[in-house]
């Protein structure tokens, strides 16, 4: 089960619902590890301080805004949060709009919401009401110190949160040809016929990631050519046979094709 990314409340009108945010997306790309060419040892990412030369753990890091070259003003997460204290704790719907009114070009990533204990009834109510009306609630929400515009909408009884680009992040289509082109009505009629005849149910599982498959085919070729290398941490351990390694590669490719 996906872990919670955030918990807080959503509000519409005076109704407040305790919820938890979980990702609606699971990346399905093959995982590659960065290695040292010389000894196949995995690389570790360090954040080195240019003053003391130490590797600085996350709790000792702070954001800094560069006001002139080499001069920074440190800004803490608490200070960023305090700019809009409520927005990091609660998703307050400012208004509802038809979901279909939001230009799909503006959608970013999505999360699912789950009700926390005690919130089940109002959660189910809002999900059902949004589905019946085809509306989405718009809210400004601060997640990980970053403000996002989000659309709260529902499907199959679940509340979904999708980030929407702000109006000032949208690039204009002014000057995009064709401008004011009038299509030929007969041509449009014919096309509508064709489009309707060629309509099929949407099959998301057919959208196989060809890039990832090509990468795994390359892994397979390299296995045949050069075999497997042990990192220093695995020194002396028996290497998997070509057959064993191939079986793992094939299983991964099957998962990419959605066949397991």
């Amino acid at each position, binding site marked *: 089960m996906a872990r919670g990314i955030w918990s807080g409340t959503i509000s519409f009108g005076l109704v407040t619902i305790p919820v938890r945010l979980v990702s609606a997306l699971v990346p399905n790309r093959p995982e590659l590890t960065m290695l040292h060419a010389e000894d196949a040892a995995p690389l570790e990412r360090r954040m080195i301080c240019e003053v003391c030369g130490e590797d600085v753990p996350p709790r000792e890091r702070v954001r800094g805004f560069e006001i002139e070259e080499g001069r920074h003003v440190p800004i803490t997460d608490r200070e960023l949060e305090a700019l809009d204290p409520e927005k990091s704790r609660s998703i307050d719907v400012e208004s509802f709009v038809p979901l279909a009114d939001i230009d799909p070009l503006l959608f970013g990533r999505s999360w699912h919401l789950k009700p926390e204990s005690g919130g089940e009834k109002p959660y189910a109510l809002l999900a059902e009401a949004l589905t019946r009306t085809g509306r989405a609630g718009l809210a400004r929400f601060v997640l990980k110190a970053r403000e996002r515009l989000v659309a709260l909408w529902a499907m199959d009884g679940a509340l979904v949160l999708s980030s929407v680009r702000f109006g000032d992040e949208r690039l204009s289509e002014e000057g995009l040809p*064709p401008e004011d082109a009038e299509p030929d009505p007969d041509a449009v009629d014919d096309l*509508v016929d064709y489009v309707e005849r060629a309509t099929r149910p949407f099959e998301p599982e057919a959208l196989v990631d060809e890039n990832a498959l090509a990468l795994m085919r390359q892994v397979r070729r390299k296995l045949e050519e050069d075999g497997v290398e042990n990192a220093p941490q695995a020194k002396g351990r028996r290497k998997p046979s070509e057959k064993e390694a191939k079986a793992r590669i094939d299983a991964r490719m099957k998962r990419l094709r959605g066949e397991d």
Partner: protein
Amino acid sequence: MVRSPIFRAELEAGKLRFPIALHTAVRRERVRFHLLHEKDGGRLRREMVCSAEDEPVPAEERVRGWEAREGQFVILEREDLRAAKAETDRRIEIHHFVRVEELDPRRIARGWRLSAGDGGEGYAALAAALSRARRAGICRWAFRGRVRRGALCARGGRLRLLALRHAGEVVAVDDLDLPETEAEPDHLDAAIDLIEAMSDGFDPSDWINERQKRIRELVQRKAAGEEPELEEPEEKTPTTAEALRETLRESLERAKAA
């Protein structure tokens, strides 16, 4: 003005065929920060360190590995990664269409605006037909070393390409294990009334990111030596199932008064 095209291609749908160009549709507007060491204000630099030798490894000595078993890797050099990249494909062929409502927002990875690369007759006709039929064309294209699977959609007489998430990348709602709760009919009527009362059309220009400006103001205040006040957020009390009816009624009254 619109940005100059990033890719040109030939679109094919049935007997129709015309040239198009892709344009970036959104840009990111964000205050940039560096990471600092809180203690001494030193700027942090990322370093990749070998886990066996504890030494920084420069970019030219790095390779990638696919982990066949724990600590055991199939090595991929730079040219192997390059060999796995897709060749550019400028023929965008629409094989079939789907109903637009089936492409829910979770499935959309990103999008580009399209312009016509010719007089625009085919473009305008296809945009009008897709809008009227409420359909999107499923297609595939490849540029910058990557194959994209996506949908050709129309809006306001304009065509755009939406790249869709790959198979298995969107979590099914069934996997959420939501509690089985049904909304009560009279609550539902009240909630729908409230939604209607709080409804508006969507105009993106009403939704501007004001936070960037406020972050810059915060930076200036701090640079001038001011210490900002840290306000504690108020915790909201969840609405109980018993109070739901009354809260909906009160909300509706307020929304109507507003």
